[in-house]
C-alpha cells in the first residue's frame, strides 16, 4: 500500500461519495454514467456531450487501436467501454477506489476490460501502457489539510508514476477541476461553500490550481495543450440538477431527503462556482518526455 504521506483521499472517503448508491447516480447521470464535465456543442443531449468529451480524451491520448490503455479513476466504466467497443483498444484497465463502481463495470460483462479497486500508487502493471486517460480523479490526489509542499509532492509522485508506466512516446490526457485563478487558495478555503464541499461532499479532497499541475509534470511530461471549459462544467451541473429534481421522489426513496437536499445544494454551488470562475475545468494533454 502507498505510504500515508503520499495518500490522497482514502478509500473510505471515496466510498462516502461514490458508493451512496449506483441507482441514485443512474437517476441523474446520462446512460454512460459519466460523472465529470461534458464537452458541449449546440443541440447536444447530456449523453452526446459526455461521449464527445470521452472521444476528446481518447483522441488526445492517441489511444485508438492501441494494445494497452489505462483509465485512472475509471468511474462507472464509460471510457473503457468506448475504448474497447468503438476505438479498437485490445485491453483497457481501469482503476477506481469505489467497490460499487467496480461491481457496476463487472456487471456490464465487457470484453477486453479489467477493473481494479486500487490506487494508481499501488498499481504495478506487468507491462507499460500505450496511453493513459484520467478524468475527474486528480481532484482527489491531495487532501484539504495538505501544505502546498506536500500537495505538490503528491502531484509529482503521480506524474512520476505515469512516466514509469507509460511507454516512450505515450500520452496522458487529463481532466480535472481546479480552483480558479481569481482568488488565492487561502481565500477559497475559507469560504462556506468550500468547507461544505470538503466536509459533506468530497471528503479528504482538495482540488489543485492549474499552475500546480503544470509544475508537477515538469521534466517528466510536456504539456501539449490545455483548455479551461468551466462553462461546460456549469452546463453539465445544470443538467444534472434538472434531472435530479425531475426524479427527486425516486431519489428520496433511494437515499433519503437529507442526501437529495445535500446533492442539490452541491450542484447549485458547483454551477455558481463554474459560472463565476471560482472553479475551472481543465483538459490537458501531456506527452511523455524521454525514452
Amino acid at each position, binding site marked *: 500500500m502507498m505510504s500515508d504521506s503520499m495518500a490522497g483521499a482514502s478509500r473510505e472517503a471515496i466510498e462516502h461519495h461514490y458508493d451512496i448508491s449506483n441507482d441514485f447516480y443512474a437517476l441523474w447521470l446520462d446512460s454512460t454514467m459519466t460523472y465529470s464535465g461534458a464537452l458541449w456543442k449546440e443541440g447536444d443531449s447530456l449523453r452526446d456531450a459526455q461521449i464527445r468529451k470521452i472521444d476528446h480524451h481518447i483522441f488526445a491520448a492517441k489511444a485508438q487501436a492501441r494494445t494497452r490503455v489505462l483509465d485512472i479513476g475509471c468511474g462507472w466504466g464509460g471510457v473503457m467501454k468506448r475504448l474497447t467497443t468503438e476505438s479498437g483498444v485490445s485491453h483497457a484497465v481501469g482503476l477506481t477506489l469505489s467497490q460499487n463502481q467496480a461491481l457496476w463495470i463487472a456487471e456490464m460483462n465487457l470484453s477486453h476490460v479489467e477493473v481494479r479497486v486500487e490506487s494508481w500508487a499501488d498499481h504495478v502493471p506487468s507491462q507499460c501502457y500505450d496511453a493513459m486517460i484520467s478524468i475527474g480523479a486528480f481532484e482527489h490526489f491531495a487532501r484539504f489539510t495538505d501544505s502546498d509542499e506536500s500537495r505538490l509532492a503528491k502531484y509529482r509522485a503521480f506524474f512520476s508514476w505515469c512516466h514509469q508506466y507509460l511507454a516512450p512516446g505515450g500520452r496522458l490526457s487529463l481532466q480535472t477541476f481546479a480552483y480558479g485563478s481569481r482568488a488565492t487558495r487561502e481565500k477559497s478555503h475559507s469560504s462556506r461553500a468550500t468547507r461544505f464541499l470538503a466536509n459533506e461532499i468530497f471528503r479528504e479532497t482538495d482540488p489543485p490550481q492549474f499552475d500546480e499541475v503544470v509544475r508537477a509534470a515538469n521534466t517528466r511530461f510536456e504539456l501539449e495543450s490545455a483548455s479551461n471549459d468551466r462553462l461546460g462544467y456549469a452546463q453539465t451541473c445544470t443538467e444534472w440538477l434538472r434531472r435530479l429534481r425531475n426524479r427527486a421522489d425516486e431519489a428520496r426513496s433511494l437515499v433519503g431527503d437529507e442526501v437529495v437536499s445535500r446533492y442539490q445544494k452541491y450542484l*447549485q*454551488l458547483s454551477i*455558481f462556482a463554474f*459560472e*463565476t470562475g471560482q472553479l475551472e475545468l481543465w483538459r490537458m494533454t501531456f506527452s511523455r518526455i524521454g525514452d
Partner: protein
Amino acid sequence: MIKRSVEEIRQRLVEELAKELELAPGEISPTEPFDRYGLDSMAAVNLTLSMETLLGRELSPSLPFKYRSIEALASHLGKLN
C-alpha cells in the same frame, strides 16, 4: 409558477439577505451592491433557493452574480414572473 409583485420579491430578498448576514432587515439597502455585503456563493445559492420557493420555479444559482443588488435582482425576477 406563483405570481409575485416586484415589491414582494424585494421584501423577501431583504429578509433572506439579512438572515444570511445576521443583520436586521432595516440594515439592508436594496440598492447596495451585494459585493459590499460580502455575499458569498453559499449566500447566493441560499438566496436563489428562497426565490425558487417564493416564485415556484427553478432559477440559476448565479443570478445574484449577474444582478448585483436586491433592486436589480428583484426587477429581473419581476420580469420573469
